């Protein structure tokens, strides 16, 4: 534990508790300023609605789910979460640049699987997460993080079941990661 490994190929991250405290304070600030928490999947939802609305407006209008997010006043992209998510991207860019993690395009995976497997898994995971986040009224940041912090019962439920399921099925997908 006392040995200090300082090889340059090792990514340098901040202390997770430090990240946690910072994230907690940021969340608190967000609540203080805007009255609601952070979020991420909402931006994709706006993007989906916008795309469908552009490509097939009538189809979007006839869809009961999408219709509720379409307004005549402005595009669904004109949304708090879209701006916030764009900020998340920029923030990632800044941090990546600062810690020297921005490199050429690459795929991160367990050495046991091929690139193709990893990409298919990522795609399937994304689809599942997309569907799940709609049922769960938010993803890990919106429902689990911000929801639990604001003491919403639903937020706690999402957090417990999401991590619980993760542990329950982790064994079957171990090859993807270790």
């Amino acid at each position, binding site marked *: *534990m*006392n040995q*200090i*490994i*300082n090889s340059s190929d*090792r990514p*340098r*991250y*901040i*202390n*997770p*508790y*430090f990240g946690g*405290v*910072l994230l907690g*304070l940021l969340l608190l600030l967000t609540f203080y300023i805007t009255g609601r928490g952070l979020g991420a999947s909402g931006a994709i939802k706006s993007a989906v609605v916008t795309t469908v609305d552009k490509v097939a407006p009538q189809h979007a209008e006839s869809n009961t789910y999408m219709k509720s997010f379409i307004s005549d006043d402005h595009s669904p992209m004109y949304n708090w979460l879209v701006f916030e998510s764009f900020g998340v991207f920029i923030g990632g860019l800044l941090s990546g640049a600062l810690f020297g993690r921005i490199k050429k395009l690459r795929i991160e995976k367990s050495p046991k699987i091929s690139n193709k497997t990893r990409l298919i898994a990522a795609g399937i995971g994304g689809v599942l997460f997309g569907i799940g986040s709609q049922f769960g009224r938010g993803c890990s940041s919106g429902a689990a993080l911000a929801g639990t912090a604001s003491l919403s019962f639903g937020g706690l439920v999402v957090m417990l079941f999401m991590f619980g399921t993760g542990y329950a099925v982790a064994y079957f997908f171990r090859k993807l990661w270790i």
Partner: protein
Amino acid sequence: MHVHELNPKKTLVTLTLFVIIIIIGLLTLSQPRLVYKMDMKQSVDLALNNQGFVDQTELSDLLKNPGQNTVLIDIRDTYQYGRGHIPGAENISAVELLSEDNLKRIADLDAQGIKVLLYGNTLTEANGPFMVLRQIGYNNTKVLIGGYQFYQRLESSKGDSSKQISCVPDQAEYNYAEIAKSNGTVTEGDSPAKKPVVIERKKKTNAVAGGC
């Protein structure tokens, strides 16, 4: 162990900042000067049971032996007070009643077993200040039914035993349902119940809110 996990100093510093903010919050937390001593249930009971309402008999007794165990406080404005008030009453406005000095005085009076009787022009005018004082724990406060208007009527009818003056708070003066049923064709004097009321009303023309 990851390299980064060996150095939680920044974390400590940040968290300490957070703690400092909270300590500042605790220190600057202003305790309100006045707090409600009654919970909602007690307050509702206070209202419904007419606790602390002083009726005509009590008032007459009080006027016969003034200054003994009750202090009268007129909460109307100085102008109205100047035009006439119950003998021995002091003039303190409702808002002033909550000043440090006045509250201390009420508490001191309570310690001596002396009551504080508030009145306005009507019962309703003094009811709010009375309820506030009671709810913040000054249980020796009372309020005069009918207010100053009722006192005036009581005075003017002095010695005239034929006139029975009474005043019951929030009493229906009419049979509303009857009037509603009679379909608007009510003419003066067709209901015996409201006859005295009409007469009474004409007498006290300056009274805005009728009743007592």
